[in-house]
């Protein structure tokens, strides 16, 4: 049966300098269909979607909308064709209400009839099953509400083809389920949805078909009903990958770090970490779960000496019967105390590394002060850089190339490699595998396990609950700056964690 596609891409090629981001990609989305676009980071998904939404222009190839060939040269062209994209980072004006954001930039009459607008928005919400208050201001909203506003904004403008870029990365499992319900309603109404995601179980549960990209190449499109996690992974990575993360039993755990009543405030005196109590043992991996902005960043930064602590104590135990208080000390002070604390921050190139410097200069970032000389010793860090490059198989032309030009996975290997080379007693990693391909991710999980076996206390913040439940010995859940529970990683269930991620109540701490 002949069917017109909502949108068709033929032979699309896009190059950036010598890098080919997309090569001869074909993609078709039917009306009333959810298509998942699957691929590792750097496989060209976002580039492809940016060409549909008018941010880039393809070097070669053809785009058809409703069977007609079109040229999309700007985001406006894309809007006019009924295409809308929800980006990972929301583009909303904080001090305006939902309704004001939705009509922002739309042509209209001189006199605004907000009542009418609110009514239309509520009609849309009822039709697709959203929950929204059009009069609520954006800054009062949760992440999931903001996402709803973004989606309604597109529908209000008459978009019939919606692109969602990793929409569930910021949501709890429960919120994600609700989003999928809405997407299914939209599909029934004849909308076409392109969903970009990494999470295979989501692909299998909501999509009709899956298109797979690998290293910029179009691999295949398969029916979801005929796909399995294994078959999709194989297509995505190009080889069979062992998906089990090793979890050795902790050997002889000793108390290494103790947080008592730790409270942090931001510059506006808003509490970001609320009386957190936590004990960390050497030889185990402690996972931190929570929705983004739940206090994970503050927790790690408070321990690392990058965040002032307004209340409470952070005690480090180098040996039994010895203790050192490190709350409110800065990085240099902590180092001077002889506390070997390694930290892989979330913002790799904004905090952990200097993008414009080469590997050698980055390797010495945390150790350049050593020695009495006023001049830099580049020989030792240079040798270490070469060693890290060889051991972790970092792909870069040489150790004197700027790290900012490396791919995300290699950047992270440089950072983790440097921190581990300090032979830490406590290793903290924030989102260690965000934006990193599957092979590199597993390499990094293995590195964490190695450290654990060496007796290092490993603390890691990971957003993917599946990974967290497979990797960690214990999981502490944060919500709104409070630790709402500490679970055993071997027995905890995903929905248990999900509930704790949204549980707002005073004194909800349940230590084992």
């Amino acid at each position, binding site marked *: 049966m002949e069917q017109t596609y909502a949108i068709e891409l033929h032979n699309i090629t896009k190059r950036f*300098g010598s890098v080919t981001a997309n090569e001869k990609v074909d993609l078709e989305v039917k009306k009333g269909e959810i298509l998942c676009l699957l691929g590792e980071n750097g496989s060209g998904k976002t580039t492809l979607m940016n060409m549909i939404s008018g941010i880039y222009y393809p070097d070669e190839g053809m785009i058809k909308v409703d069977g007609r060939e079109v040229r999309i040269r700007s985001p406006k062209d894309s809007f006019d064709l009924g295409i809308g994209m929800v980006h990972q980072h929301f583009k909303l004006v904080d001090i305006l209400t939902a309704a004001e954001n939705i009509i922002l930039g739309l042509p209209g009459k001189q006199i605004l009839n907000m009542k009418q607008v609110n009514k239309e928005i509520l009609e849309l919400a009822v039709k697709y099953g959203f929950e929204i208050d059009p009069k609520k201001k954006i800054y009062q909203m949760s992440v999931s509400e903001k996402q709803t506003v973004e989606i309604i904004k597109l529908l209000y403008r008459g978009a019939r083809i919606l692109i969602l870029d990793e929409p569930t990365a910021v949501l709890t499992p429960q919120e994600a389920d609700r989003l999928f319900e809405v997407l299914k309603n939209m599909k029934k109404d004849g909308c076409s949805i392109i969903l970009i995601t990494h999470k295979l179980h989501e692909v299998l549960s909501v999509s009709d078909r899956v298109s797979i990209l690998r290293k910029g190449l179009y691999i295949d499109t398969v029916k979801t009903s005929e796909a399995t996690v294994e078959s999709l992974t194989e297509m995505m990575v190009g080889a069979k990958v062992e998906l089990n993360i090793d979890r050795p039993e902790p050997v002889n755990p000793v108390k290494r770090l103790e947080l008592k009543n730790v409270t942090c405030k931001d510059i506006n005196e808003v509490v970001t970490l609320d009386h957190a109590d936590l004990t960390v043992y050497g030889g185990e991996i402690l996972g931190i779960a929570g929705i983004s902005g739940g206090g994970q960043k503050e927790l790690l930064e408070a321990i690392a000496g990058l965040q002032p602590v307004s209340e409470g104590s952070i005690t480090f135990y180098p040996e039994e019967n010895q203790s050192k208080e490190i709350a409110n000390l800065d990085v240099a002070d902590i180092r001077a105390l002889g506390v070997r604390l390694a*930290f892989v921050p979330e*913002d790799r190139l*904004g*905090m952990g590394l200097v993008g414009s410097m080469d590997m050698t*200069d980055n390797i010495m*970032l945390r150790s350049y002060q050593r020695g009495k000389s*006023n001049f*830099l010793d580049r020989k030792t860090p240079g040798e270490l850089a070469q060693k890290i490059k060889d051991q972790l198989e970092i792909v870069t032309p040489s150790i004197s190339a700027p790290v900012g030009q490396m791919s995300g996975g290699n950047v992270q290997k440089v950072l983790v490699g440097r921190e581990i080379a300090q032979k830490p007693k406590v290793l903290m990693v924030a989102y260690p595998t965000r934006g990193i391909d599957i092979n590199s991710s597993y390499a990094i999980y293995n590195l964490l396990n190695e450290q654990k076996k060496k007796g290092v206390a490993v603390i890691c913040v990971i957003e993917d609950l599946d990974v967290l439940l497979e990797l960690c010995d214990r999981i502490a859940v944060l919500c709104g700056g409070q630790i709402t529970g500490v679970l055993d990683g071997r027995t905890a269930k995903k929905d248990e964690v999900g509930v704790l991620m949204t549980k707002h109540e005073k004194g909800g701490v349940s230590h084992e």
Partner: protein
Amino acid sequence: MNKEPMFHMSKRESITLGKRIMIYVAAILLALIVCAAVIVGLVHMNPLGVYKAIFDGALGSSRRIWITIRDTLVLLCIAVGLAPAFKMRFWNIGAEGQVLIGGVVSAACMIYLSDKVPNVVLILLMLAGSAIGGLIWGLIPTFFKAHWNTNETLFTLMMNYVAMQVVTFCICFWENPKGSNSVGIINQATQAGWLPSVAGNAYFWNVVIVTILTVAMFIYLKYSKQGYEVAVVGESDSTARYAGINVSKVMLRTMAISGAICGIAGFILVSGSAHTISTSTANGRGFTAIIVAWMAKFNTFIMILIAFGLVFMEKGATQIASQYGLNENASSIMLGIILFFLLGAEFFINYKIERNRK
């Protein structure tokens, strides 16, 4: 019907040195062609004649060559002083004021101490005093930024006007002859406090001081631990804190060095060439030096070339003004055109333009 765009640009990953030089040469040639068109179009003169006059003005005689060198050295000295500040992304547009204060301190020493201490001691006192003056002038805005996060761009700019008022105030006391509202040549008879000529060359010490500063700053930025800290702070505050660097301390230290070198530039101006002080002693060099520092990407050796190029054009301008009766602004237009093309060349070094394939 929408048409496909003809060209698109993309970022270069790397560029060979040869290609980089070719782009600059092409930019200068294009700039000269445009200048020629402007000259012919506006004043109907032979552009080649005008170019020759520019060359003569800058390098036409031994005396002119030395004046060009002298002014290049001052501009270079200020740019060397600005290099660490801008590398730290501290927008120090107060070099003008730091130079003036250095100059005022030098002049004060010359006026008040010339008959009290031997000449060598006097000159060393002037050098140290001007460096301290510039240092303090640089530290004031930095202190406020470090403690209350004030905006250094506005603050350093305003400090320029304060420095000018300080000079105006001093001129009231130092007027010579009375009523001239200017200081005149200080110690003309004794030449006390003047950098002495060596083997008949009045600018020997200027060359020595600026060369030492240029080489030292190159080594400081590239090989010292403090230079490394400057680079890290310039990239990102949070990276610096993460590395255990005390950002305020590095900021204060770096601006102390930056201000001191700018103050020394004031000393060189007063002691080594002008032998007087006025509100226009710095004459906009504090701003021009920013262009020198940035275009050289803080490499002090490349700054020598750029400073020379700018002074060359400035001297040439004065020459065409007198030889052809053109207003001096004519050369400002030419300098503007050349800078426009040189800065534009940066774009072609970072990006390439490709034709879209059909």
